[in-house]
């Protein structure tokens, strides 16, 4: 149970980070935090019910890595273009 509590806490922190941070990088980090919270609960479930949860956790890690690769690429591109990574500056798609 305590794993799940930790996971929930971690997830809530991540959500809070996503909602409050202005910089795209930190938003990104917060998302990582939420993913890790999910992983933590998956691993916790795996302990209790069997190994499938571990597989799902590995899957999440792989996807998170891919996402970071793409996301960071985007952030770098945007930064080059606008000299800023503040998400509030990106309210319009116009270049």
């Amino acid at each position, binding site marked *: 149970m305590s794993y799940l509590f930790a996971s929930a806490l971690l997830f809530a922190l991540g*959500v809070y980070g*996503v*909602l*409050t941070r*202005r910089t795209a990088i930190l*938003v990104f980090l917060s998302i990582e935090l939420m993913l890790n919270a999910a992983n933590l609960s998956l691993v916790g479930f795996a302990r209790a019910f069997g190994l499938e949860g571990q597989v799902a956790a590995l899957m999440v890690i792989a996807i998170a890595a891919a996402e970071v690769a793409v996301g960071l690429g985007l952030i770098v591109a945007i930064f080059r273009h606008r000299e800023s990574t503040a*998400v*509030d500056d*990106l*309210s*319009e*798609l116009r270049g």
Partner: protein
Amino acid sequence: MWLLLTILLPLLGFALLGLFGKRMREPLPGVLASALVLASFLVGVGLLLSGGARLEVGWLPGIPFSLLLDNLSGFMLLIVTGVGFLIHVYAIGYMAEDPGYSRFFAYFNFFIAMMLTLVLADSYPVMFIGWEGVGLASFLLIGFWYKNTQYADSARKAFIVNRIGDLGFMLGMAILWALYGTLSISELQEALEGPLKNPSLLALAGLLLFLGAVGKSAQVPLMVWLPDAMAGPTPVSALIHAATMVTAGVYLIARSSFLYANLPDVSYTIAVIGLITALYGALSAFGQTDIKKIVAYSTISQLGYMFLAAGVGAYWVALFHVFTHAFFKALLFLASGSVIHALGGEQDVRKMGGLWKHLPLTRWHGLIGALALGGLPLLSGFWSKDAILTATLTYPFGGLGFYLGALFVAILTAMYAMRWFVLVFLGEERGHHHPHEAPPVMLWPNHLLALGSVLAGYLALPHPLPNLLEPFLKPTLAEVEAHHLSLGAEWGLIALSGVVALVGLWLGYTFFQRRTFPTWYVTFEAWSRESFYADRVYNALLVNPLKALAEALFYGDTGLLRGYFGLGGTVRNLGQGIARLQTGYLRVYALLFVLGVLVLLGVMRW
């Protein structure tokens, strides 16, 4: 073809002046317009001398466009174009330097063209075209100085009151069509020669046509527009009152005499309305302070005389009075115009007086016009008025009551005619102006009209003396058998009306030079000034309730619109509110996403 030309010439003037008038230099539009009317007059004379003309063109199925110039319409054509020409010439001087100079003459020519259509028509629908045409022209001319709201209102009043009469005209036409299947006047004339098919319905048709005449000729109860029609420039008043529009009603009755001769009851109604109008107009003329309105009420009164004559069956006498009236009424108006011109636009007779020594020629015009109107023996007005008086006794639909009523009106006429003259030309000067005599272009038409006012009556002298007009007009009018008075009785009546006119003139001449008036007269004058509250009664009974209804409907309408608008507005606001969510701020979306998930989870839990 020549017949059509009489109408087309002034119409051409209307088109030319309407299109190119602005580019013409000042006197040219007036000269052109006058010349075209004169040309129309000459063509008319030529046609009349060659024995009349007829034109029929296929037009609407069953209703040919037919024109007819016989003695009756030829007679009217000469009055319209003859007097109309003189008024045109006068207007060249009167309207000088008006910004709407060419527009004025374009309307004037249009007026003449439409009046000729009315007069020459041989079928009621064609007459109706002219009828509406003069209505339109009078609207344009009365409201000629349209920037003055009051003038524009007067124009609309004339137009709207006339609509009531026009409805009567149209319904009358519809009944005639239903009864006889034709609206050609000549064909109807033939159809009515036998026994009548449906006398009561025919009487209704006659009454409805008469209603049209009542509107156009400003008879009681549709007389309220005519005094207001003074808003237009003075030549307009002269043209409307003397030669054209208002006599159209009399002409309609005379043209339809074949109908009215068969309808004694309707004829009686016409005579009664005529007498009431004559009395009303005469009484109302006393209190007026506007130089033109005095003359305007005298027109109403004189038109009443004409209808009285037409009502008792003396159609040619009605036209005789139209003829003499055209001269002295045009003269009175144009003399008034010269006075207004001399005083730089002053129209209030209370600020005039003493113009006798300042206007050496216009004073004679005014005097001759007033005396002819008042019926001074040997002037034109005397002969025609006397013919009407005699006709009320000798014609079958007449009677002693009509005679006495008309005689009483004759005294009043003489008195208010003198009042007009005394207030304008005699006494001491009451204004602070520097009067100057009118230019020759305005004086010459008046000379000719004054000549006509003196001589026009000699066209039809009473019995043993020569009467040219009656045999000339008789063939075109219905036969109504008048019983002849003995020579002594007839000349006795003439002497009586002569004495009455002289007494009236003398009374008017002496009475209105007084400084103070008895109280009964002051009271009467106050009533008369408001023309016996006819306008107020109309406003209270008809105009204001209708206005209130219109406003209620307007508010209902705006309420309804506001409702629809409100509904639309709510939906729009909702849309705008939702659109505001679409900000593009990533964190807002994220927040909403989170909230959404929380809600979903909560819903699932619950």
